[in-house]
């Protein structure tokens, strides 16, 4: 539900409307992004109610501050950042309730490795390797991968969301990709495994 391409033009227009007091535009943003925000928040905790409370805080705050809010052409990013900040504030206050040994909440994901249609030994081995690689990612790498490949954000957004400069984000991604590259099949074995592999995806897509 990481609602594909958020329509930036429409968002921008409606955001302006919201800033000038349009309640319908406000409700529109809630409806459009509550699902994504919830999924995103749940990456930091398992406490559904906490995430709902934080989402409520985010929306109540933008409503009461709307005369002071800035224009934005990326509403989704704005909401994501607000949710993250709200959530981190709670964590900061209630450290005891969450991760005792880390100040920041840990970004965690359970990847849905394609476990269907694994036919042969070769695929099985490959899946196993992929799983190991994903398991070896650091929380920061996971976070950046989530933004880039699940939420499909561009680098500029990710930098803002992670409050990091371009090069640092780039480094995070590259380190993850480098791990993936090790999965690239050895040259001499390629032909056979690739053929099987191709079949597998064709099956899946049909």
């Amino acid at each position: 539900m990481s609602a594909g391409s958020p329509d930036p033009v429409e968002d921008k227009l409606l955001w302006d409307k919201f800033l000038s007091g349009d309640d319908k535009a406000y409700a529109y943003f809630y409806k459009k992004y509550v699902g994504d925000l919830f999924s995103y928040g749940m990456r930091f905790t398992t406490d559904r109610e906490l995430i709902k409370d934080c989402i409520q805080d985010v929306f109540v705050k933008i409503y009461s501050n709307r005369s002071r809010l800035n224009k934005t052409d990326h509403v989704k990013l704005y909401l994501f950042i607000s949710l993250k900040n709200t959530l981190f504030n709670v964590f900061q206050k209630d450290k005891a309730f969450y991760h005792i040994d880390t100040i920041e909440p840990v970004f965690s994901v359970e990847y849905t490795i394609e476990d269907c249609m694994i036919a042969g030994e070769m695929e099985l081995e490959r899946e196993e390797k992929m799983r190991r690689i994903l398991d070896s990612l650091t929380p920061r790498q996971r976070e950046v991968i989530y933004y880039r490949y699940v939420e499909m954000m561009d680098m500029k957004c990710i930098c803002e969301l992670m409050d990091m400069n371009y090069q640092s984000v780039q480094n995070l991604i590259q380190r993850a990709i480098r791990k993936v590259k090790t999965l690239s099949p050895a040259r001499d074995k390629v032909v056979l495994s690739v053929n099987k592999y191709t079949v597998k995806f064709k099956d899946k897509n049909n």
Partner: protein
Amino acid sequence: MMEEDVYKKYSSHTIEELLQDNRFITSVTFPTEESDAYWSKALEDGTIDRPDYELAGHFIRSVQVRPERIRRSEIDNLWENIEIANKENLRRRKNRFRFYFSTISAIAVSFVFLYLLNALTQHEPAGPHASGIENIKAPNVRTTDIQLVLAGEETLSLAGEEARIVYHEEGIDINNRETDLKNRQPHTGRAVFNQLIVPPGKRSMLTFAEGTRLWVNAGTRVVYPAAFDRRQREIYVDGEVYLEVSPTAACPFVVKTDRLNVEVLGTSFNVMAYRNDTVHNIVLVSGAVKIQPGTEQEVTLSPNEMYLYANGTPEVRSVDVENYITWRSGAYRYESESLDVILKRLSRYYGREITYSPQVASLRCSGKLHLKDDLRLVLNSISHTAPIICHYDGERYMITNK
């Protein structure tokens, strides 16, 4: 083989390039005919190495996470809470000089909602926990003010459309102000009760010391002990109440009505029960409640189910819960509801008499009514959809067929 040829031409940079390419990322997650064509062409004419292409795609598919989905009912409830909080903020801004406590607590409570209209028929109070709460009499005073009856039989009249009453360990705050009222604890072991009486046309919000909150709709009486028992929290409701019950381990919350008991098995819920209505029902949004309807069998409701009692037979059916809980945010929503039910509720909500013929009563309407509007406007808006005409003689509303 094709793959082999292709393979030799390309460096291992391709995976990285693909994984940094916006177009590629979007194509994997949201493939279109156009994108498929684009990539097959790139593969065929050899600009991209197939194994790398596959691996890059495989990686993106592998890192997709199973999203934690928010449920439909959660979205709706959350929206309602947001609207309530926004309204509250606007009101506060208007009354900025007033002293008030508490921001929204960040720690969560989960919600069970429940809605209930009580039957006209009077039954012996049911249930295993007879404490006599249902036998507490309403004070014999006729007033259009909201009344708070304290344990010592002291009765307070509260002016205004809405009252906010907050019990805490030490005493009671009213409309965000501290009072010198003491909430008397029972010393004798015999329970003492308080009452909140909200006349037609008014509403209130009541918070108990343990954290449970009640929104009390028009024409409702709530009876509750000055302090809850350790083993069981019990209140009596004649009317409509929305509850957020504060979860307390091993201490169930029971709402008694004239006709039945509702026991909260989850953490929170919402109740409505009018003694004088012929149909009653309980609607559960989330969590679980157990209903003990006196003589009939006990029923446990699941979310999105309604326990309906009409014409003497109980029945459980699936409903859109939203229609039953919007009143809290100042709206009634109906789906094919008879005007009889709608007008009765409006009359109660606004505290005005509305008369109508049986033909009008049997008409059915759907839609949302905004209760912030003047009653006349609300009735007019109904007359735009239903074939009725509305008259007002300065005292009561009369509705006739067109």
